[in-house]
């Protein structure tokens, strides 16, 4: 029987969008059955347009910067957009997949994507905001799958 991977994706920034989609698509390639439950800010990763995901250097001292930059400078208008632009350039230069590409790979390989219905209501999102081929459910829906999973991670 196939192994199972259950993930919770709770973050919606460009950098944190990677781990769930990388792990899920790779596990699917390894013949795992995979389910990702998208909750709170993670829900953003299921929107039709993910080209506006951003990364913020603010409060993240581990983020490599070309020159040392104190928080006071990073909070200036435009810094977040600049950091995002630089990150996207690096991603393209290094042959790292885009989020769209990894998400498509997940969908193609049958990864089950579940949007947290409570968060949809909380943030006044509409089901129409999201891509096709996903399910809407709550914590119990996640546990129906996660309860029998071999690997379960919160991201």
């Amino acid at each position, binding site marked *: 029987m196939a192994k199972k991977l259950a993930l919770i994706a709770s973050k919606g920034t460009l950098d944190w969008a990677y781990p769930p989609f*990388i792990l899920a*698509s*790779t596990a*699917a*390639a*390894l*013949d795992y059955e995979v389910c990702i439950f998208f909750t709170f800010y993670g829900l953003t990763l299921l929107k039709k347009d993910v080209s506006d995901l951003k990364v913020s250097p603010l409060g993240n001292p581990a983020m490599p910067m070309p020159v040392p930059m104190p928080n006071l400078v990073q909070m200036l208008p435009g810094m977040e957009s600049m950091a995002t632009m630089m990150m996207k350039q690096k991603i393209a230069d*290094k*042959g*790292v*997949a885009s989020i769209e*590409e*990894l998400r498509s*790979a997940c969908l193609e*390989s049958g990864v089950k994507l579940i949007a947290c219905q409570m968060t949809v209501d909380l943030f006044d999102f509409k089901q129409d905001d999201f891509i096709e081929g996903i399910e809407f459910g709550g914590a119990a829906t996640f546990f129906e799958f996660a309860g029998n999973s071999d690997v379960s991670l919160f991201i």
Partner: protein
Amino acid sequence: MDFDKEVDAKNLNCPLPILRCKKGLNELLGNQVLKIMATDPGSVKDFEAFCKQTGHTLLQLDQTDKVFTFYIKKRNDTL
């Protein structure tokens, strides 16, 4: 070495070479051989791990000029 399909995964980073490999294998029959080229140094370990977990056989690994070429025989499910 003879092969039935060739996939170019050069200049792609993790996990794309593995995803391309899986896609390529999907288009083959059991016991057919996939040739796949990658430049990601991490792919050497990853392809070994991929084959070990999925039951496909890594027949050969060549390295020239930072390009790794893997020959992978697809698992025969009819057995």
